[in-house]
């Protein structure tokens, strides 16, 4: 039995320059599993999610590799079929709740439009489902909120609505792209708890993109550490925090500030580690270019 989402040797290049943004990335996420994607900014974490969901920027092109979603090879499918498949089994929790809701649409339709237009639900069913979901994400008085415009709600509430909206059609895979980065710390904690709760309740496969290892230790079962678009370590979370194998992972873990001693624990990643991992990436690149 293969995993629900499988990515094999995925490379993405910047059209024009041919620079590699993703370097033969492989990973798998099973139904009910939460996988964290961690790395520095620009390491390609979000790019992987975008490649899976078919929303890569125009300038980025998949050069090789395969993405299998529920056994279907996404890159071999016709665009219309791919869109339909992704629309019915996958969903996105975007990074910035402030721009992720359409400012000119009321909350209700933002949740139900997809159910009605794409999946063919009845209007009344969709409405009932939206109310139920708003309840699930702990929004009080859903009947009132459903008639509101996004700008009338706070950031935390908008993120709750986005989570509700992502789970609306019972997707089997959700990609959460730094869902808590734009929120303040107290709200972050609630939202993380909520995502964990919803995921456990619905048994969804979840890809959690973040730069925060603390978050990974709380919500994920497995993780992939990325550096410059290359997976340097793929591990179970328990194993990783007990004994990270790659030098870069160890350095990253060591760089996580501890609240007990913030001043002393705030260490940058050692330059020698960066050098080593950069060299590793360069070797991989040479092999890749050679092999083509």
């Amino acid at each position, binding site marked *: 039995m293969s995993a629900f989402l499988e990515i094999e040797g995925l490379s993405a290049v910047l059209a024009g320059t041919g620079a590699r943004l993703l370097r033969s990335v492989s990973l798998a996420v099973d139904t009910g599993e939460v996988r964290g994607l961690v790395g520095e900014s620009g390491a390609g974490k979000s790019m992987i999610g975008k490649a899976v*969901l*078919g*929303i890569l920027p*125009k300038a980025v092109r998949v050069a090789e590799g395969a993405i299998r979603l529920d056994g279907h090879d996404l890159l071999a499918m016709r665009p219309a079929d791919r*869109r*339909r498949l*992704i*629309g*019915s089994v*996958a*969903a*996105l929790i*975007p*990074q*910035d709740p402030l*721009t*992720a*809701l*359409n*400012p*000119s*649409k009321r909350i209700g339709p*933002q949740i139900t*439009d*997809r159910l009605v*237009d*794409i999946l063919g639900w009845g209007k009344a069913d969709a409405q009932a489902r939206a109310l139920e979901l708003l309840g699930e994400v702990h*929004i*009080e*008085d859903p009947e*009132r*909120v459903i008639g*509101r*415009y996004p*700008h*009338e*709600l*706070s950031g935390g*509430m908008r993120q709750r609505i*986005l989570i509700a*909206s992502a789970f609306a059609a019972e997707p089997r895979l959700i990609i959460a792209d730094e869902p808590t980065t734009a929120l303040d710390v107290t709200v972050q904690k609630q939202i993380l708890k909520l995502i964990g709760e919803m995921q456990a309740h619905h048994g969804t496969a979840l890809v959690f993109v973040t730069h925060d290892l603390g978050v990974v230790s709380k919500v994920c079962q497995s993780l992939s550490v990325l550096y410059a678009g290359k997976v340097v370590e793929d591990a179970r979370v328990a194993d990783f925090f007990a004994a990270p194998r790659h030098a870069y992972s160890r350095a990253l873990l060591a760089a996580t500030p501890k609240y007990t001693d913030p001043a002393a624990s705030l260490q940058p990643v050692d330059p020698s580690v960066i050098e080593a991992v950069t060299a590793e990436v360069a070797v991989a690149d040479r092999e890749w270019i050679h092999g083509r």
Partner: protein
Amino acid sequence: MLDGRAAVRRRINARLWLSGGWLALLAIVALLAPWLAPKDPLAQDLFAARLPPFWMAGAEPGFWLGTDSLGRDVLSRIMHGARIALAVALVAGIATCLIGSALGLVAGFMRGWADRIISRLVDIWMAFPPVLFAILLIAVLGTGLHSIIIAIVVIDWTRFCRVVRAEALNQSAMDYVASAKVAGRTRLSIMVREILPNVLPTIVALVTLEMGIAVIVEAILSFVNLSISTDAPTWGGMIAEGRISIHQAWWVLVFPLVTLFLTVLSFSQFGEGLKDHFDPVLR
């Protein structure tokens, strides 16, 4: 968990009332001009030439705003002129808006080659001086109401195209567009149902502004005698005639000028007011 943001209510402000009121009045006058106008706008009476408006000595009852040098009633001519001005404003404004906005939306959302072609076309188009371009077009198309409308549309679609493209470009970068793509919506549906509503307040402001511009362009072309027949009551034509007799009869020039000024001002203020009123987010 609701906060104060939902409690904000907006009132219709004085700007919207005043400009809207003037435009409504003008629309009623234009619609009912044949019945409302006290005199025949074309009837000449050389014995009643250059009669002053009603409050001045020598005014004759029935000619409220006086008569021009051919004895035609100024008020009736302004009222009939409103028909032409508003017809041009509506038809040209809406046609310009449809063409310009559609191209702008496609360019801003689709990007790529569609954007390159449309944007280059706009750049080239805007290199032509508009008034000369208009006169050239009238020369080619011949005079008449439809030529004026076509000229305005052909010249001014770029105004919409540029602004709508920029807005669509902005909106397309938002996460809600990415979510809509993931949800399986087609590009056409995203463009029309997600992006268009957010660009609409801007389009509304532009379309009313464009109507004001259309009124001005019509007046300019009438002023240089490139509009419809010389006899027909147009505001621009009246201003041109009034200019000649300014020293003997200022009212022939001033009343159509004031009407034109108020109308153009109202169009632009009305658009801005509507934009603020309908924009879901207070900007």
